């Protein structure tokens, strides 16, 4: 069932490519159907896995030989962690299509590339053959580049090029590490579960871990390799920035956890503190930079760096609770960042054609676009990590984990939360509430918020509130996965 998430996306992309005519209506309808079908497959697959295997260990989805000489297999499997992220991808995909409903320019190609990106993302989350994972990882980069270059806005060539270069450098590092692991292991397999059993020599692990982890973490916005993220997010069209922040950054974090941390636990142990420092710097730095931005979208872009810092910090705690928080934060940030980018890019920018906070403020948008204002208020509250929303439980777990592993970083991350509250409040007030001096200015009418936008916003809001109130829904997947045999090397490293 789960494998169909990949096939449907690529199939949809192929069909769209060969669709005749330039009429946007069939293109977007088809894209929506494909995204919905993907989400349905993801949900059914998740329910299925949950009822059969208790979501603990890896459950095979597909397994066939591919390049037999090298021991490369087409091997898809899912455990609780990948299921959580597949669900996230499904939800983000549907919301992204809904927020791209107004794409008129070359819409056929837009949605085709969009679906191809989705397919690649699903593929990464479901692959357990690391070569296959790498292939999907690369597949996801290309549509991303074109989406930004063709449909982007501010400095799109620059943003797209920067994003692509960072991604390729990262993936080159990953490739080097993977091939080295393949050769050193000598077992002629790229299978994650097999490679995880190989005791790599510590000296090898020490360098291989850094290469693979950083290679992946570039895409997760690890400071100081994060600079592609804000520019890329700003340049991208709305749906692409939603996916970029919502899902693509999670590819990096997922790879870092799934590949680097599991294969090289000794290396992880060596580098744990260093990377935790970078994560904390990212949390605080991203939040501080977001605090002084004049461009609405840059604020959200930098906030993503800060929130992804929490994911990396959670991973580095090497505690059950911290990792569980990190995975939950991946999901939660995917939803919330998607929502905030949708408000900025689609609801506000497409109507006002500006993202300058100084220009937006006198417009008093809370009167002109009340729906957008309310959505941003709730989304902003979720992004601040207020209780009742998904981000709270995630950051709570990460902070508890951080306290157990390195209390000082726990305090610094808490300071990061405080700055996060400050910049969210600032951008909320500047973007939607006119200052007292200029409030008298007449309201400029804007087109009303359309139905697809409302549905998309409600979908994302409902998700973050549901997970915020019933985190058990996801934790029931994540916790058993963290206890699965696959993760055991990690816990052994932690007790070393």
């Amino acid at each position, binding site marked *: 069932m789960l494998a169909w998430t990949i096939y449907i996306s690529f199939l949809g992309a192929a069909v769209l490519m060969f669709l005749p005519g330039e009429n946007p209506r069939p293109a977007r309808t088809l894209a929506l159907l494909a995204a919905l079908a993907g989400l349905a497959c993801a949900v059914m697959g998740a329910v299925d896995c949950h009822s059969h295997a208790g979501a603990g260990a890896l459950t095979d989805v597909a397994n066939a030989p591919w390049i037999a000489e090298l021991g490369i297999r087409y091997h898809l499997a899912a455990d609780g962690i990948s299921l959580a992220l597949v669900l996230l991808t499904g939800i983000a995909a549907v919301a992204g299509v809904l927020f791209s409903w107004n794409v008129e320019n070359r819409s056929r190609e837009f949605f085709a590339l969009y679906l191809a990106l989705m397919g690649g993302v699903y593929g990464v989350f479901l692959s357990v053959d690391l070569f296959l994972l790498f292939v999907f990882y690369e597949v996801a980069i290309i549509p991303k580049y074109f989406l930004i270059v063709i449909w982007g806005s501010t400095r799109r060539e620059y943003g797209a090029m920067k994003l692509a270069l960072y991604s390729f450098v990262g993936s080159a590092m990953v490739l080097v590490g993977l091939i080295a692991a393949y050769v050193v292991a000598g077992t002629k397999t790229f299978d994650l579960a097999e490679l995880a059993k190989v005791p790599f020599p510590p000296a090898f692990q020490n360098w291989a871990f850094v290469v693979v982890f950083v290679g992946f973490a570039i895409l997760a916005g690890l400071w100081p390799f994060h600079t592609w993220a804000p520019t890329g997010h700003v340049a991208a069209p709305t749906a692409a920035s939603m996916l970029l922040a919502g899902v693509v950054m999670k590819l990096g974090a997922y790879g870092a956890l799934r590949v680097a941390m599991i294969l090289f636990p000794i290396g992880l142990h060596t580098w744990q503190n260093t990377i935790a420092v970078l994560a904390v710097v990212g949390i605080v730095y991203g939040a501080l930079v977001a605090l002084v931005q004049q461009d609405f979208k840059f604020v959200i872009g930098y906030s993503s760096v800060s929130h992804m810092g929490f994911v990396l910090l959670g991973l580095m705690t090497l505690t059950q*609770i911290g990792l*569980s928080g990190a995975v939950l934060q991946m999901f939660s940030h995917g939803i919330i960042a998607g929502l905030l980018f949708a408000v900025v890019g689609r609801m506000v920018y497409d109507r006002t054609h500006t993202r300058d906070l100084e220009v937006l403020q006198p417009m008093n948008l*809370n009167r002109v676009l009340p729906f957008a204002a309310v959505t941003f*208020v709730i989304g902003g*509250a979720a992004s*601040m990590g*207020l*209780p*009742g929303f998904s981000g*709270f*439980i995630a950051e*709570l*777990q990460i*902070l*508890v*984990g951080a*306290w*157990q592993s390195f*209390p000082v970083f*726990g*305090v610094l991350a*808490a300071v990061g*939360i*405080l700055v996060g*509250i*400050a910049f969210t*409040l600032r951008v909320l*007030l500047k973007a939607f*509430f006119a*200052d*007292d001096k200029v409030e008298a200015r007449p309201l400029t009418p804007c087109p009303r918020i359309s139905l697809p936008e409302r549905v998309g916003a409600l979908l994302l809001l409902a998700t973050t509130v549901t997970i915020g109130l019933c*985190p*058990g829904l996801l*934790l029931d997947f994540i*916790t058993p996965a963290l206890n699965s045999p696959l993760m055991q090397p990690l816990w052994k490293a932690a007790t070393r």
Partner: protein
Amino acid sequence: MILSILTFLPLAVGVLVALLGPDRQKLGRNLAFATSLLALAVAVGLWASFDNAKAGMQFVESVSWVPSLGIEYHLGLDGLGLIMVLLSALIVPFAMLASWKIENNPKLYFSLMLFLEAGLFGTFTAQNFIHWFLFWELSLIPAFFLIRIWGGPKRAYAASQVFIYTMGGSVAMLAAFLALYATTDASTRSFDFAQLAATAHQGGLFAGHKTLATAIFLGVLLGLAVKVPLVPFHTWLPAAYSEAPTGTAMLLTGAMSKMGVYGFLRVLCPIFPEQMQAWRTPLLVLAAATIVLPAAAAFAQKDLKRMVAYSSINHLGYCLLGIFAAAGLTDGSALFPNEQAAALNGVILQMFNHGLTASALFYFVGLIEQRGGARGLNDFGGLRQAAPVFCGLMGIALFASLGLPGLNGFPGEFLIFKGTLHLAERASVLSIPGLLLTAIFLLTILQRVFSGPLAGKWNGWPDLTLGERLTVLPVVALMFVFGIFPQLLTGLANLAVLQMLKSF
């Protein structure tokens, strides 16, 4: 079940009201008001079915929520919680009536009030830290927007001040609790208040780290101190209260400020008895400062609303004095049981009665501003001749506020001082000038606004309308009722106090 209903009723109706069409403003307002009355009826029903003779929590609901983190959906009421629920349920409809004529988007205003009410009920019934914290934070968002959208000229500044200050305190408190959780032995880990207090009692918290314990204690203290507020964390308050629209100011001072005091009683004292003992002197000094300095500041104000705002800080200072004097005096059992019980009973009385009186005062100041377009202390004079009923009722509220026997303000302050004069002599003596200053500035208001010659332009100043009389008379009547029969409240509170003293 009943406590969940009480909490989620305003929340659900609030959402419903917010979703009504823009041409249904009146319907939304009426629906919200009816809901607040219904909530009041439920609260009174709780009071009627509350068993005074039973120690511990009643109406308990407990459902596992996030078991891996020790988070439970755990509700319960003891005497203290019940009194706070009653107070909130009483203030909300009162504040709604005071906001009846709001013109700018009343539907949204009233739905935010309902959200705030849900936040209050949730805070006063929750028995698990995370659950409690959820509502504690939830109440801040509607408060922020109520000030930001409907406030006075400096509303942007005032709203941001409230939000940033309170959030800063909340994050410190949250971080402190997470540290507490993370450093506790896995077998006794919990977020449950009662459980935490029991573990603390057995010395099972902080794994014996003295510095860590202090840091955690100070984090929690900061969160609560900002909310009450305790001097020197009070600077957000005068701007917030004076910029807030009347109804919101009534809710902020009447009910929300009690969240902080409640937190001291429910969270800080039971979980950190040793630290309360260690920090007793500085805390008592701050409490005395919270009583005296704002009273002096109120004395120097020229703006009626700011005067009432400062007097609010001063009155909550008595609560803090009572708590700090009674806490940290344990040696396995209470050292001075009678005095400690008196002080804490006084604190609870004062919380309730201050809520009643201060919200009434803000109501009257709002009426003055609405009629005269000004609220300066020296803008008026002789209004008694034009509006005798107005003046009489506001006079009663002013006297209640300064603690005249027979009115509701007296029993609480009397009991607090009865306790603290034994428990913390010097701090109590230091605080007494506060009483005096309060009397002076409240009488000054009475004199400047209502006595003297009536200025020509205020000729024909309208007295209270029938609607306004009906709004405020029940509250004034309650001032007499709780002034003459304080045992109505102490009867509820006493067992809870005795229970608390075991862990103080």
